[in-house]
């Protein structure tokens, strides 16, 4: 079976995370730009004196891998993305029931 690993990271950690993932067999990844905040608050911005409660820019790196690889991938991301400061992000792991490679129609773990 497979799991989806979604890592919310600092934009500055992207290169390190991608480099780290190469070392564990280079799974397919997608990266999306998002804005967000964790338990800490966002940041207050000001436009012509008017306050706006802002969110911080983050990236979500998503990879789907076989169950056996989950721990390795998570460890790599944690290691690559950690600075030790508040705002390093989080990783969520969730079940994936199937995967299909569009080009070939292959299914399951072969497809990831």
């Amino acid at each position, binding site marked *: 079976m497979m799991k989806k690993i979604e890592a919310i990271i600092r934009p500055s950690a992207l290169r390190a995370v991608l480099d780290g993932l190469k070392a564990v067999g280079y799974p397919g990844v997608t990266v999306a730009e998002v804005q967000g905040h964790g338990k800490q608050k966002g940041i207050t*911005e*000001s*436009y*012509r*004196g*008017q306050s*706006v*409660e*802002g969110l911080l820019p983050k990236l979500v790196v998503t990879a789907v891998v076989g169950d056996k690889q989950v721990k390795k991938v998570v460890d790599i991301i944690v290691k690559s993305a950690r600075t030790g400061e508040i705002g390093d992000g989080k990783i969520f792991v969730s079940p994936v029931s199937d995967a299909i490679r569009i080009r070939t129609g292959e299914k399951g773990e072969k497809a990831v």
Partner: protein
Amino acid sequence: MGFFEKLRALFKRRTAALAAAGFSALASAAVWAQQAAPVTTAASAGASAAAAPVVSAGSPQAISAGDTAWLLASAALVLLMTPGLAFFYAGMVRKKNVMATIMQSFIMIALISVQWVIWGYSLAFGPGKSFLFGGLDWLFLKHLPDVSPLAPTVPHYAYMIFQAMFAIITPALICGAYAERLSFKGFVVFSLLWATFVYDPIAHLVWGGGYFGSLGALDFAGGTVVHMSSGYSALALALLLGTRKGYGKENMPPHNLTLVLLGASLLWFGWFGFNAGSACAANALACNAFVTTNTATAMAALMWCAVEMVHRGKATTLGAASGAVAGLVAITPACGFVDLIGSLWIGAIVSILCYTAIQVKIKLGYDDSLDTFGVHGVGGTWGALATGIWALKSINSGGADGVLAGNPGQFLIQLKTVGFTAVYSIALTVVLYFIVDKTVGMRVHQKEEELGLDLSQHGEEGYHI
């Protein structure tokens, strides 16, 4: 909000009274005009006086290629200010309204260019002698003399098209007040009426040989005609239209500040045509206007940042851009009458005034969305009054001395012009608002506003996957 809602209700109830007040002001002004008739053409000011200090009947001046070159270049520069304004405003709105906001400026170029050559120029600068209008003798630019007495060294077409660019940008400035909530049809009809019944008369009164010019009011490049007229009309419209849906509850940060800075930069660039071009000649006065314009603008941008540092702890790029625009606005009436020191003061003070006005707006809760009143109304008023303070006859022999040169009377003349322009602009805007609202409609429906004007009014989006 409470204050504002009351004010708005008052505004709506008192429409008739206000309009009446406006018109009675007009009527009394007409009386003054007749009293003032003897001085007519003696010391008419602004672009005209500046350009033509030595004009008198009987000695026609030759066309100057240099002056023509500069005025045509200036007209092109001023044209670019309106797209500059489009981007300045469009970057400040939410993504869903970016194109509609650009359109409000861009289509104004088309709309008023046509209005101006058909009837606008005739109404504003035609030879007629009525109080508000120059008449219809120059419809379709027929019967135009070879040169205008207001710019005797260039072909008349050069002066006419230079003035066209002013007529274009003025109603476009108002867009900042009704951003993100006006229907496109209402916008087009309102703008056309406003250009005809507000801009053209005020241009006539101040520049086109009308009452305030004769009175000796100083407005080199449009502090009253352009910035106050649009600024006070913007205030009236913001109150009449009410706030945007979600105002004060939703975040409405500028969706693209790079566009704002692009627009501000084009405005600064084009404004050299606006101000230095208003000399209508490539002479020392144009150079003075160029330098005072640049200096006041720079000073105002610095000062806005300084005020922000004191008030919020950080200087912002939006603040620098806003300060630059405020400085440009404030120096506009003064640039051809004041010296360098005057321009430094005018620029430094305008940012304090405009920044404060915007904080007051936030407190009061009315929604002059992109601060047309806060910047152009307040900045234009300050500039017009400041001209009465710092003006020097030594800079412009066709002008007058101000308070600091020992002529407090000039300040009173400026005050009178300021008062009239504010009252007239507000009164007429209220009338036009109700006419357009009852016919084609001004504000979009709530659902359209929620969807965004780009999709609801134009069926397109600014950015696509």
